[in-house]
C-alpha cells in the first residue's frame, strides 16, 4: 500500500505498524503525527495515511520542510511564490506582520528596509518580543523569520528610505509593500518606486488606526498597479492609536494581495 511520510510517497507492506515504520525511517523521532494528529499509541497503517516524524529541536531538510509546510497550501502556490522577491518598506506594525505571513507562505526572498529599533510601545502590535527591545527591527525580524522558515532569504537594510535610495534597495523586487507610518512617506515611496519601476505593483496601506468595524477595511485598486488597503480615513493620532487587531487585518490583506499578484490574479 502507499502512504506518505513527510509528504513523500512511500510503498509499505500491508500490515506495517506505525512504530515499526518509525524504527525503520526515523528512530530518533520523539513525536509521530498521523493524519494531522499526534499518535498516542502504535497502530496498523492504512492506505493513504500521512505520517510525520518529528525530533524536537531538529530543523528538517529544506525539501522536507517545504513539503511539510506547504502541505496545507493550495496546490501549485508554493512552487510559484518561492521564485518571487517581495520588498517591504517598513518593518513595524504592518511590515513585520506581512513579513511573517509571507515567510509562512514560502515566498523565496524578502527585502526589508527600516531604520528603527524596537521599543516597548511597539509590542502592542509589532511581531517582536520582550527580549528584542533595543534591537534594530530589521535584525530582529530576520531572526524571527529564520525561526519560522529558515529557507526564506531575507535581505535587510537598516536605513531610512529616501527617493534616492528606494530604486537601488528594491531593484529586484517583484512587488513592493508600503508599510510606513507617516503619510508623506507613503506618497514618497509610491512616487519614487513607480517612477523607477512603472510596471511593478505596489501594495499600500492607509486608514488602519483604532478599533472601528472590520468591514470598512477594503482593497482599493487605484490603478493597474496601485492597491491601497485600509478604510482610507482612520488616521493614527492622539486618541486613536494603532492596535494589533486592525493593524493585523490590514497587514494580512496586504499579504494576501501580494500573494494574488504573485500568482497573476486580480488583487481584489
Amino acid at each position, binding site marked *: 500500500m502507499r502512504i506518505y511520510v513527510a509528504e513523500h510517497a512511500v510503498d509499505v507492506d500491508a500490515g506495517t505498524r506505525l512504530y515499526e515504520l518509525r524504527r525503520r525511517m526515523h528512530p530518533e523521532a520523539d513525536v509521530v503525527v498521523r493524519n494531522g494528529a499526534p499518535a498516542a499509541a502504535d497502530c496498523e497503517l492504512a492506505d493513504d495515511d500521512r505520517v510525520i516524524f518529528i525530533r524536537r529541536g531538529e530543523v528538517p531538510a529544506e525539501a522536507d520542510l517545504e513539503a511539510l509546510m506547504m502541505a496545507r497550501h493550495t496546490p501549485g502556490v508554493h512552487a510559484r511564490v518561492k521564485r518571487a522577491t517581495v520588498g517591504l518598506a517598513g518593518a513595524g506594525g504592518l511590515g513585520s506582520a506581512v513579513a511573517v505571513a509571507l515567510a509562512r507562505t514560502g515566498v523565496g526572498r524578502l527585502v526589508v528596509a527600516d531604520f528603527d529599533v524596537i521599543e516597548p510601545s511597539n509590542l502592542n502590535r509589532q511581531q517582536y518580543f520582550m527580549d528584542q527591545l533595543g534591537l534594530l527591527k530589521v535584525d530582529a525580524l530576520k531572526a524571527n523569520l529564520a525561526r519560522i522558515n529558515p529557507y526564506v532569504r531575507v535581505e535587510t537594510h537598516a536605513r531610512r528610505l529616501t527617493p534616492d535610495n528606494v530604486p537601488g534597495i528594491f531593484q529586484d523586487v517583484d512587488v513592493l509593500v508600503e508599510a510606513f507610518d507617516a503619510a508623506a512617506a*507613503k506618497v514618497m515611496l509610491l512616487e519614487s518606486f*513607480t*517612477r523607477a519601476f*512603472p510596471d511593478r505593483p505596489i501594495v499600500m496601506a492607509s486608514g488602519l488606526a483604532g478599533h472601528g468595524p472590520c468591514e470598512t477595511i477594503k482593497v*482599493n485598486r487605484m*490603478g493597474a*498597479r496601485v492597491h491601497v488597503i485600509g478604510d482610507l480615513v482612520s488616521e493614527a493620532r492622539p486618541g486613536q492609536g494603532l492596535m494589533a487587531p486592525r493593524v493585523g487585518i490590514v497587514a494580512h490583506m496586504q499579504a494576501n494581495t501580494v500573494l494574488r499578484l504573485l500568482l497573476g490574479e486580480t488583487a481584489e
Partner: protein
Amino acid sequence: MKIKLIYYAQVRRAAAMESETVTAADGIGLAEAVRQAAERHGEAFRTLVLDDAGSIRPVVLVLLNGVPATRGESRALRDGDEISMLSAVAGG
C-alpha cells in the same frame, strides 16, 4: 477638452462628490487642474489637497490615468485624462 477627477475618502467628502468631469483649457497641467478643483469645492477641499503655496500637499496621492503622478508632473493634460486623488493618513 474634458478631464475627469475622481475623489477618494476625505477628498470625496470635501468635494461632496465621487467624481466630476469638467471642461478644461487646452494645455492645462495636472497641478493647475487640481487648483481649479479647489476653487470649485471651497476651503475644506483646498486645505486638504493644497499647501499654503498652492502646491499639492505631500500627503496626497495623485494618479493620472491610473499611474502615479510625481509632484512635478509637467505634461499638459489631454482630452479624456483622469486624475485620481486620495489623501493618505498616518498609520503603519
